[in-house]
């Protein structure tokens, strides 16, 4: 028997906030990626909490899919990072600004 859903939701919100701040503040591309993973986990936690609160297994199914897609995304994303690194020898996001208007 677990706590009222609100606590989990609050924790998930905090986790999401930390992940968001990390994404915005860090310059290393790999760290930014990890912050994205934090945010995804926060979302997963929220979904599972609501699946419990609403007595609907659909929330958990959604978490399943989020997990899969996150995995795929990390795979492709890191592939891109590798390709960029081969070209520019940098993992600092700020150096990749040639699309500026």
């Amino acid at each position: 028997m677990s706590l009222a859903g609100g606590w989990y939701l609050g924790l998930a919100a905090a986790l999401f906030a930390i992940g968001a701040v990390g994404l915005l503040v860090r310059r290393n591309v790999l760290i930014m990626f990890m912050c994205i993973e934090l945010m995804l986990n926060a979302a997963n936690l929220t979904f599972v909490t609501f699946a419990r609160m609403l007595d609907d297994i659909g929330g958990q199914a959604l978490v399943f899919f989020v997990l899969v897609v996150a995995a795929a995304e990390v795979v492709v994303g890191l592939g891109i990072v590798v390709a960029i690194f081969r070209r520019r020898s940098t993992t600092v996001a700020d150096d990749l600004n040639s699309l500026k208007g």
Partner: protein
Amino acid sequence: MSLMHIAYLMPLFPLAGFLILVAFGRRMGDPAAGWVGTIAVAAAFVVACLALTGLFQEPASSRVFIHDYYTWFHVGGLSVPVGIQLDQLSITMCMFITGVSMLIHLYSIGYMKGDKDYSKFFIYLNLFVFSMLVLVLANNLLLTFVGWEGVGVCSYWLVSFWFERDSAASAGKKAFIYNRIGDVGFLAAIFLIFEKTGTIQYQGGPGGGILGQAHHLGGGTATAVVLLLFMAAAGKSAQIPLFNWLPDAMEGPTPVSALIHAATMVTAGVFLLCRMNHVLVLSSNGTEVIAIIGGVTAFVAATIACAQQDIKKVLAFSTVSQIGYMILAVGSGAYIAAIFLMVCHAFYKGLLFLGAGSVIHGLEGEQDLKRMGAIRKAMKWTTVTFTIGWLAIAGIPPLSGFWSKGDVLENVYSHYKPLWALGLITAIMTAYYMTRLETLAFGGDARWDKIGPKGEPALHTPHESPWVMRLPLVILAFFAAVAGIFDLPWATHHSFNNWLAPVFSGTLYNDHLHGAGTWALATTDAVAAVIGVILSWSIWRKGSVDKPSLEPQFLQRVWYWDDFYDTVIGRPSQKLAYFFAWVVDARIIDGAVNGTARLVKTSGSAARKLQTGYVRNYALGIALGMAALIIFMLSRTWWS
């Protein structure tokens, strides 16, 4: 079929001449092109004579032939035909238009000899005669307007014939613009008439045309129509306040001045008012205004003519003055007297202009009176014919001028005594300035063989003009002398008066005072003329020709009329145009358009700064949106 039915050929002959000359004129050259033009108008004259006989054969009450040839356009309730109205008024006009035009065409063959645009001159002249005939023969207002515009445009072309001269080009524009101002009045009058009577035909069409429907025009509308028609007439016939284009129009070749600005176009205004006499009679206020303006114009123009140095300018102002008499007659209801004066004026003014042209031609272009003198010794034919013209216009009996002017003044006397007095004073001045002209040009001693006052070289002995120029002078002199026969006051049968009376039935006012009254007035006229002649002859015959006290600047500068218009209308209009061009158009409108472009560019440049290229900035944008969304959702939950 009556001979009246061939009247439609009258405008078609000059039109054919125009087309032939346009196609082949340059190839025909000098003088064949001139003969083609002359023959075309002569053919029109022959048709006019035949139509006249056809009209004569009809009984007096039914001398009207109205026929539509086809419908120009048909819109709503308005159906505008192309057709002619041949009655006594229009045939009279046609007779002297074609006759005088024919003579002037003949004259031009000699006058324009050697000009590089010889055939072009006759093209314009033929087109002019065509337009004028359309004007007088039309059976509805709109077709008359077509002819009206046609003569206006031909006048513009002919006045600025030597357009390489700046003054000629400006004069042409001035003539056209003043005419156009009058045309506004014409159009407005047509609109009003159509609105109230539902028709623009003079007598034809269902309901009897304007003649039949004139009673629909209420007092106010009738006055408005009359004044608007007079505005048109003032523009075309050079009356106050639209008269100062006529002196400038003397920049055109002299035959043009003779034809257009003496005999035909300038009479179109008088003709229009006579044609619309059924409307004029409905507004006594309107006709009073017309009479006053006519009388004042006659007086003012006569004063100006007394001080002019250029021979053609004297004649130009004389024309304005004489037409003022005609307008005065129209305003007094004496339509027939006005027409009679018009006919006689065509003869003697045409003669005077052609004679002046002969002098100018003989002196190889000199037009300044102060450089002429004693022409009588060198150009006999010109002198004799000119003298006849001079006596006619001065009003010396028994020439035509005396009878026609007397007719007008007699009728005016019955109506407006002050205007009669003004007319009498003007008659004295007419005699004065014409005698001054005659004396300075033909009398006295020769001045052309001396160095001019501004250092111009001496001129050669003037040579008499060729026969093509002399013949029209002789014919016109004959008519100027004897035309009085047409309307002698004591003639009750077969007179001009009786001939034209049916046209003006019901509106006519032609009061021949009987007995002593008529003789008294006639004597007064004759005395006035003689006084003017003797006064002028005695002043100008001897002594220096420079008499500045008799030729004040005020009169020479046309009572400063041109300067007045320039200051009040010309300059402010220019400033306004300048303002619109450089402030409104360049700054405001272009500024708005360019400003919009600049705005787009600036906002684009500003918006561009959002695209920094840094992914983290874009992520910040997403965070911003997220925060906004949260706040929005919160606000919704609190307020609901």
